[in-house]
């Protein structure tokens, strides 16, 4: 035992590894994939964000010029920043609340009905890019579903260009995004509600819980901390990275950038304009925003639930 204390820390590390080699072996596949496809790209984009890189020639170091341009000399970035914030802090919380509300409702249903309803709400998010059907619903043609409906009802006379008129783009995208967002978070809520021990409610009733609302606030929510946090993380990730929905529905870029987010702006610069360095800088900013918001959310949820 005394010998092991005198060992150098590095040797101790390897010895530790050898001792738990079965565990490390099991982690290895994921760790390798995570490193190659997540850690390395994040690190390399951090490096590239300080360069001028056009995808073909070697990157040139340019210091902070990309970051300076982003905040001081790119009007479009500010629009995209605003839109991303709208998605993150309006769509995100709304869909988070909706997820919880519907999960809570569905939980009250009978077993068979619960399965059906869960599927109904969860289906949009597993259906891949099925949301492109909204481009037909909101088609600018007078035979488009929404236009023909409104024209039939006599509300409008001329077709509205839902997907290319700057006044409607963001609204349509928010709607579709909310429809899409009943994803993993929603499922975890259902699982969480199922997992709460029924005895707790009984004890609560004895201790004087009077209404379902009190039950929700004092019993259900505090017991669902992990699920709340998990769903929040998923929801924030999804809201910050809204991009495909916008560009598939409204084109890329959208009219006057009305619906563009940081993600679509990154794609625009990276692929259309061949400015990978600048695109990486924006990606880094977006990454930091997501990490920061995650921390914020963790604290908020920690206020009334143990995570």
């Amino acid at each position, binding site marked *: 035992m005394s010998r092991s204390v005198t060992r150098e820390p590095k040797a101790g590390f390897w010895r530790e590894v050898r001792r738990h080699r079965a565990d490390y072996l099991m982690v290895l596949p994921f760790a390798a994939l995570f490193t190659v496809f997540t850690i390395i790209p994040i690190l390399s984009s951090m490096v590239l964000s300080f360069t001028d890189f056009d995808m073909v020639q070697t990157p040139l170091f340019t210091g902070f010029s990309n970051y300076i341009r982003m905040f001081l000399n790119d009007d479009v970035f500010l629009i995209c920043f605003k839109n991303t914030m709208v998605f993150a802090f309006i769509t995100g919380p709304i869909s988070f609340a909706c997820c919880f509300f519907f999960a809570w409702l569905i939980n009250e249903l009978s077993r068979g009905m619960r399965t059906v309803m869960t599927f109904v709400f969860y289906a949009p998010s597993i259906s891949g890019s099925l949301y492109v059907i909204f481009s037909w619903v909101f088609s600018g*043609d007078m035979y488009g579903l929404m236009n023909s409906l409104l024209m039939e009802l006599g509300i409008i006379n001329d077709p509205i260009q839902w997907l290319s008129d700057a006044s409607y783009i963001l609204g349509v995208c928010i709607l579709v995004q909310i429809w899409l967002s009943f994803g993993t978070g929603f499922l975890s809520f259902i699982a969480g509600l199922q997992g709460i021990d029924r005895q707790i409610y009984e004890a609560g009733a004895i201790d004087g819980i009077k209404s379902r609302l009190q039950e929700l606030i004092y019993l259900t929510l505090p017991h669902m901390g992990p699920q709340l946090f998990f769903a929040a993380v998923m929801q924030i990730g999804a809201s910050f990275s809204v991009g495909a929905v916008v560009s598939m529905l409204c084109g890329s870029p959208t*009219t006057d950038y009305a619906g563009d987010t940081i993600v679509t702006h990154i794609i625009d610069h990276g692929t259309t304009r061949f400015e990978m360095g600048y695109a990486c800088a924006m990606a880094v900013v977006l990454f930091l925003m997501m990490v920061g918001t995650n921390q914020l959310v963790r604290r908020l949820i920690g206020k009334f639930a143990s995570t």
Partner: protein
Amino acid sequence: MKERMKRALALCLVLLMLVGSPAGATGLPAQPEDVISPAEPTPTPEPTDMPDYAAYRALYAAVAAPGGEISPDMAAAQPSAETVCSRTEDGGLVLPEETGQVTWSFAVQEAGLYCLELVYASGETRHSKVSFSAILDGLTPYTEWEQLTLSRPYVYAQETFVQDSRGNDLQPEQVLSTRTITADLRDAEGKYNAPLQVYLTPGVHRLTLTFTQAVVTLYGLRFHPLTEAEAYETVYAGWQSSGATDTSGLEYILRAESFTAKSDAGIQAGYDKSSAATHPSAPAQMLLNTLGGTSWQKNGQWVEWHFTVEESGFYALSFRARQNSKYGMSVLRRVTVDGQVPFEAMNAQAFPSKNDWYVRTLGGETPYRFYLEAGPHTLRLEIVSGEYESVILELTEVLTRLNALYRNVVMVTGTSPDDLRDYELEVSIPDLVERLQSLYEVLGAQKTYLEAGLIGGGSETSHLDALLVQLEGFLEDTETIPFRLDSFKSNISALADWISTLSEQPLELDSVIVHSPDTLTVKASRGFFRELWYSLQVICQSFFADYGMIGNYTPGDEALTVWMNLGRDQLQALKGMVDASFVPEASIPVNLSLVPGGLIEAVLAGKGPDVALFVGSSDPVNLAARGAVLPMSDLADFASVCADFYPDNLIPYRYNGKTYALPCTVEFPMMFVRTDVLTELGLSIPATWDEMVDTAAILQRKNLQIGIPSGAAGTSGLYSTFLVQRGGTYYNEAQSATRFHEESAIDAFTVFTDFFTKYDFPLSYNFFNRFRTGEMPIGIDNYTMYNYLQAAAPELSGLWTMVPVPGTVGEDGSVNTTTTVLGGTAAIILETDRPEDAWRFVRWFVSPETQGDFGIGIEARLGASGRYSTANREALGLLPWTTAQAQALTAQWENVTEMGIIPATYIVERNLSNAFKKVVYNRKNAREVLTTYAFTIDQEIERKNNELNKRRERGTTE
């Protein structure tokens, strides 16, 4: 059925009365004198009351068949003065050029209906058909004579299939056959079962054939009465009485894919891996073992096999076949032996649809006996419309009436009717109820007829059902028509689509078996376990074989790597040509692969190709600005290669004084016009934008529309056309700033947006659907829409035309019809260590011959709707456009210019679209909006140029 009979009988009676009197026969179809005179053929057919063949045939239905035949003397044929021609030793008339006109005078003894038989041999050409029109005594008797075709058969160049380095069969090279062919004149679409007939009165007649795609040698022509095949019983009894008996124990199995000749280059041999019984088959290799399928589905296409039997006697015919692409529908084939339909039943033999291969013996349990003498014979299978003939003819007519009805209703109600209003349709369209009633009856009768025979129930007739239910509803209460108009329209177009698929009759053949009635060893399947084992082998092999690499593949860096950003069919067409023509000639191995996108990433990773074909038109400049592309203008002979293109088509590939790419495809807008609707309203085709506005006013009063590409879809739409017609361009000489602040640009923008603000043109629409119903009788679209309309809307044939876009009247009164390119792709050479080889390949690829062959190859695979939009102006003439169409296209193409591409082009298109939307949606002032956006654009161009310059400076100092 009873209804049909009754109507047919009534028709006959009426006609008898008409034809009965001797005066009636001569005065029959009242023809206008000015239809088409041989002196000046009119390129676009004017709508006349010329009958189609169905009507013509009905007129003469009661005429007795003539006894004799007439063979006009070939030596007496008179070519017109402009026609280039010569004579062969055996009296043939050679027409070596595309166009030509020949006239015969001949005397007729006996009045009656005659078929016209032609004896001809094709010359060497790229056109897949001999096309011509015919005139009798200065008149076209019926519309089918305006566009006639003769097939040019194809044969394999080699006897056996060549294999690549991995044992896979390559698609064999095929060559045009110049053998002499005898064929009766049929309608070009193969709608009718029997050959076309024409009524000849006694006396002297003049027949004129005007060729648009000739290159043919004519050996003779013969007017003869229609020969009807006799019933099987009669023929069989005749053979038996001459002492013929069944042969025994003989079986000749012909591989369908090893045919002797086929009518079309497009009929392809295929690779089948679905059954072990398909001969030959191997689990690992791609072997050619079947023929046809969807490549053999058009009426009139035929395939011939030669075979030799050793004994004289009776034989049976069997086929190992499959028809799994048309569910529930039987397909028909005419069987001819040695050029004759042996008996009546062989006029149309049905092959039912089934998912798996089956063996079908003609005649079933007791096979039809065919008497064959010992020696060589020819068997031919030809697609015929058979029982579909009357169905398609009637349904097409119904469709025209349905579309007219829809249009008439729209003219009253508009396309978005007010539900609360009673339009009193019965008052505005007095015959509404009768029309609905008769449409309902005809559709119902057709449905019953189809379901009784050819189509075994199921979903195939569902389109008819939908329309029937709807028409019934309309009849019950005509007030419901306005708000059911949308679904009425979609039901009509569904019916139209369905009719065009009805005339497609695909059949896949594995083998043709000529055998004694008691012997047949070919099986549909080799039994459950053998088939299972075979499928397992195929699945396992599929993990190792790379089906993406077709043909010979040279590993390593020795081969030139070529990427292509187009479909798989195009890849196969090109690969065949590369292996057959480029590789042997240049002795440079080529690896061709299909890579959609990812070019930049590959270049970055050092895995890029040497040559990339069909890259987007903005890529060459973008890559050039970053030094990844080789400037082609520095390579040898660049100027001479450029001569094949219109100089303006090279503009987008120029950057800093050098050219970096050669165009592969070019697409430009043309105007499509429904001549029938315009004639109905007494309008002429607008030639200028002012006339367009006038026409729009009249059309809109009738609730019809005009469609021009708007700026709503993220592009600038037709703005650039308005700009160039005023002499403007996007960029200044140095391409460092835009010219949008100039008066001509602002004027063009105002006029363009006015169409959507003042004149209320639709912003987004489906052109094809609205053009089809006639709701949008005028529209501007990419010229490739022509092929689509031709292939997908056959019911419109003859009712529309394609003309150049309207022009702007200049101050001097001249009309400027210049337009700009809508889309295009190019060939580039990337930074490579073998520029000579790459350049040689590109030069070969963009040459007129290669482009023409490539276009033909694609069309053979995809049909006319996939016609290649080549950028090579010589090659346009090699594609199967008729001369008149090619002329119309060339007329516009000469007036096509391009805007140029700069590294900051992306900002221009999106901001022009933004400007458009601001004016049209928010009704802002056009001048103000355009100048504001021009400022933003100029700023970005400057920033981009600075970035690139900085880069260049730093790059050179490093």
